[in-house]
């Protein structure tokens, strides 16, 4: 039987990834918007760059899911 610490642990894993992704994306987004304003042809690569930090939240989600499933 697991206690309250398992969901809290999973939440921390996910939340930390989400916050970090948010911080990274906000900076990339601001810089990307500036770049696209100057060079509209870079919009494709900017969308991909904006998606790069999402790895953090996705791995956070995977870890959270694994904590919930594997810690019994």
């Amino acid at each position: 039987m697991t206690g309250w610490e398992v969901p809290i642990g999973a939440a921390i894993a996910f939340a930390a990834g989400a916050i970090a992704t948010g911080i990274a994306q906000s900076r990339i987004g601001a810089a990307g918007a500036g770049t696209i304003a100057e060079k509209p042809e870079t919009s494709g690569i900017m969308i991909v760059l904006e998606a790069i930090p999402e790895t953090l939240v996705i791995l956070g989600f995977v870890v959270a899911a694994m904590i919930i499933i594997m810690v019994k």
Partner: protein
Amino acid sequence: MLQKMKRILVVGPKSDYMGIIDELYEAGTLHLEDVVKEYSIDVPVLPMEVYNTDDISSLLIKLRGFISVLSQGNHTKNISLKGSVDYSDLTWDEVTDEGLEISEEIELELKTLEARKLELEVSKNTLSRYKKIIQKISPLEAHLPRLEGFEVTILIILKEFESVLQVIKPFLSEITHNQFEFISADLDEKNIAVICVFNKRYATKVHDFLYSKNVNEVRIPQEYTNMPLNEALFLIDEDMKKILNEIEEINQKITDISSKYLKRLQDLEYLLAQRFEEISSYKKFGQTDYTFIVSGWIPRKFINKTIRRLSDKFGDKVVVKVQPDDNKKLEEAPVFFDNPFWVKPFEFFMLIVKPPMYREFDPTPILAIFFPLFFGLIVGDIGYGIVILVFSLLIHYYFRKIRWLSQITSILIISSIPTIIFGYIFGEFFGDFGEHMGWLEPLTLFGITWNRMESIIPLLILTIGIGVFHVYLGLSLGIYNAVRHHHPKHILEKLGMMGTVSGIILFILFFAEQVPESYLIFIALLTLVSIGCLIYGGGMMGVIEIMGTLGNIMSYARLMAIGLASVVLAIVANQLADEMGILILGVVVAILLHTLNIMLAMFSPSIHSVRLHVVEFFSKFYKGGGVPYNPFGRERT
């Protein structure tokens, strides 16, 4: 795949240069290069004089200005297409003259009308401001002292600065020797209006004082003063009516001009824009004393057609020389995709990210295979797949003329098919709705029931496995490129990376007791030899890159994670609908949430599938940075 490109040189008599340019422009197959830069080594080649571009550019600006004024508002409502004139028989000079003539005809009238209209709009705004103020202060009229020789002025003050009245009061009292009165009322949410009555003798001093203190003073024009306020209001209404009538008359006149000239102006603008583009390219053409020279790249399949076209028109006078292939020059060749129909839409991604170099391997067909697979694996729902398919087909049909939209919808149409197939494997139809209704169940393959909510770990292993395969494919293509360009160190580096990553994976499997202990020595040997190759091929950076490659492989976990998030949202939609109690409300909630999820499902998986290719896959072999083929000629539709 990329089209084979050939470099050609066209040389003809200088006297025929206009004809040659027109013919090449009509053919629309040649990607121009700068002749002066390329061919000035042996014989001095001079650039062609750029022909009256400034005149055409300023005429274009004028025409666009007219079109913008004449297309505004209701001016285009009743335009008949009779204004359209056939310009196909005119020469370029005649088209330019026609543009100048129309411009002269309408410029003065249109400018006068627009200026008058602007003036009237300003008066209208000012009058409505006066009206608002007078309406507010009219109830205070009864309190005003009826004295001859007194002047009334109105002050507008922000509510938060109301206290300023107490500050200026002693000063006004001193200036007017106490012969003044303040009456205030709320004007709107932010402002209050203050009527200030004082003896005319001190008018200049009072106005100067108020001006020096930056107080917003509204002086009602002379024609509305010296009369009761309701009369002033009546007069303002009358003037407003006159202004509106005059604006209406001006609009009518503009509409008349629009119906007569707009279509012609649009046609001329289109033609002159093409002409401008054509003559702007003149600086890329070259000339010697007697010859005219054009050089550029042309797809191999268009060479004969273009040569025939020139020889039909000019016979032997114009010579076209197809240059022999030169590896160094081919690096600069523009890229023109030549892909089968199912790969074509994916060229869109290559062009917005970065097109390949001419001599590089074109990964578009691989993108066309893996993108729909990744998309399908993430979304994996029969219902969502069908909705995306129908939606994309409709958009594709109705907006087929918009190229980029047609390409995106083609990608979604292709991607919806694996979505339906994976939906069948995962047993999902609008989340767990299909399973709930007993229509379908998750399939059991390789001893695993592929229910995404329960088989998280097998799905994670599957996606990481896909990552390993995809990254290895990228590394293999890197080896292929290195072999083509004779870079043995790069070959060793890529091989070393594959061996090292394989060794690490085998170690993990060994610790998970999936690999027998007897293999350990081979695994250790493989890893050591591979690291050696890696250091020889890529130096210490190659070793550091191991972590990057492992990170790349882990990144494929997103195929599972984003899909799982989508399933959870779908299940939440169904459960919420179930708990609503009222059938119709439940259905509405379910439809709304599923719509939101489908919209997310069309966007997010696309971005992440592209990202997996661009960041994780392309980084193993792809350089990019090629120049897209942009032929000199009429825009092809």
